[in-house]
């Protein structure tokens, strides 16, 4: 996209990324912002890590534009000066976008290559070790519940954020598993101080509902500090309840220079949040590159040992140029293995508690 910006910005085309709800909360440690100010911090973080020159717009906290644009997490629109949609894609496809621009604006004399750019990218922040407290292995079918941080009851940011999820049985039949994950927000540079008391929570179930247990406490951790989420799996039955659950949690928010005790609350509703995003799978095989590797032969329809763009499913085709590291027009097994290796190096796999 950056090469297209360099080529078509001088021709008067304006480019924007649109920030909206996170598609993959917990990826690279980032978690869903709960205020506009936190979204601005995320935008600055995106600019820092990507090194992109493309300006950002930011959706409302209720994701009004995302909903208006049909919720696709990585859609793309080309709009003409009259404000009409000229091209649209559910998944951004830089190759196709360049062709659109060539058709409507004209070709450029020299196409900018990625190698022409001097983009300064950076890694996501890491304020304390991870991989110390084992993660729960949950099905991808869990869905985030709609949750409202109770700002009126705290003067501090939510340094730790609650992600509440329900399994399909709880959502469909009203009785099943309720996941509570307490995640440090990396934009505040905080960590768990394991020499202080661990996080504790209490669920105040509305009349008609039952949740077991109603209270919980994070594990005792030997290392002095870490940044792993504290996760709990509860049994819940909605019963006749229509009111939300109130979940209160107490923790120490700590950096290297300060540490404060906080008690904060969320109201958690019983319905799924359409903007909750998709959890990272606990099953590595379900993630893109690993799945691509495991199904490599099945994709290779003509049995030539390499994958053409046409042999890949549509959602993957728009990533083709990124997968094709040597730009020979094909993705080969070695290229997929590099992607898988990179993904494996990002952190330890989740373990079953």
């Amino acid at each position, binding site marked *: 996209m950056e090469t297209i910006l360099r080529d078509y910005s001088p021709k008067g085309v304006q480019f924007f990324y649109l920030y909206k709800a996170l598609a993959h909360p917990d990826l690279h440690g980032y978690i869903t912002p709960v205020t506009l100010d936190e979204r601005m911090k995320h935008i600055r973080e995106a600019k820092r890590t990507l090194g992109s020159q493309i300006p950002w717009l930011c959706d409302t906290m209720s994701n009004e534009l995302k909903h208006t644009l049909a919720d696709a997490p990585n859609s793309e*629109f080309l709009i003409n000066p009259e404000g009409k949609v000229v091209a649209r894609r559910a998944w951004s496809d830089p190759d196709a976008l360049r062709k659109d621009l060539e058709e409507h604006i004209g070709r450029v004399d020299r196409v900018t290559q990625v190698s022409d750019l001097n983009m300064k990218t950076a890694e996501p922040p890491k304020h304390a070790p991870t991989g110390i407290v084992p993660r729960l292995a949950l099905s991808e079918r869990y869905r985030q519940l709609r949750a409202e941080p109770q700002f009126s009851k705290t003067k501090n940011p939510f340094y730790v954020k609650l992600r509440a999820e329900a399994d399909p049985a709880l959502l469909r039949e009203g009785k099943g598993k309720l996941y509570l994950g307490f995640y440090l927000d990396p934009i505040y540079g905080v960590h768990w101080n394991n020499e202080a008391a661990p996080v504790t929570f209490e669920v105040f179930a509305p009349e008609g509902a039952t949740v077991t247990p109603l209270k919980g406490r994070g594990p005792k951790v030997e290392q002095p500090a870490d940044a792993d989420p504290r996760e709990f799996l509860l049994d819940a039955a909605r019963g006749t309840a229509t009111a939300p659950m109130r979940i209160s949690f107490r923790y120490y928010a700590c950096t290297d220079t300060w540490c404060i005790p906080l008690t904060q609350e969320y109201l958690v509703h019983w319905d799924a949040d359409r903007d909750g995003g998709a959890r990272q799978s606990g099953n590595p095989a379900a993630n893109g590159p690993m799945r691509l590797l495991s199904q490599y032969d099945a994709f290779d329809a003509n049995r030539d040992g390499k994958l053409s763009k046409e042999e890949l499913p549509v959602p993957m085709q728009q990533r083709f140029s990124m997968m094709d590291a040597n730009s020979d027009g094909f993705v080969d097994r070695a290229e997929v293995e590099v992607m898988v290796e990179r993904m494996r190096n990002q952190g330890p796999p989740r373990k079953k508690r």
Partner: protein
Amino acid sequence: MRQALLLLAAAPLMLAQRMDVLPQLGSAGDNVVRQFESAAPAVGASFPGVSIFDETGKPFHTSTLKGRWTVLVSGCLT
């Protein structure tokens, strides 16, 4: 070398487009496409007017995109 090339190629793209978050095969990606095809503003339609924010937090209305060709790509930090 190959890994370096891959990382270089990935750099200009949004985090949402990194290889470790490739859309999964099967129903999830298909559903996104189906919903988009049926509900997103169609080619030829006016881009919707919505009040949002610029990257400094100041109010921004999408109607101000008029007057120039515009590329708008949805994304986020992850």
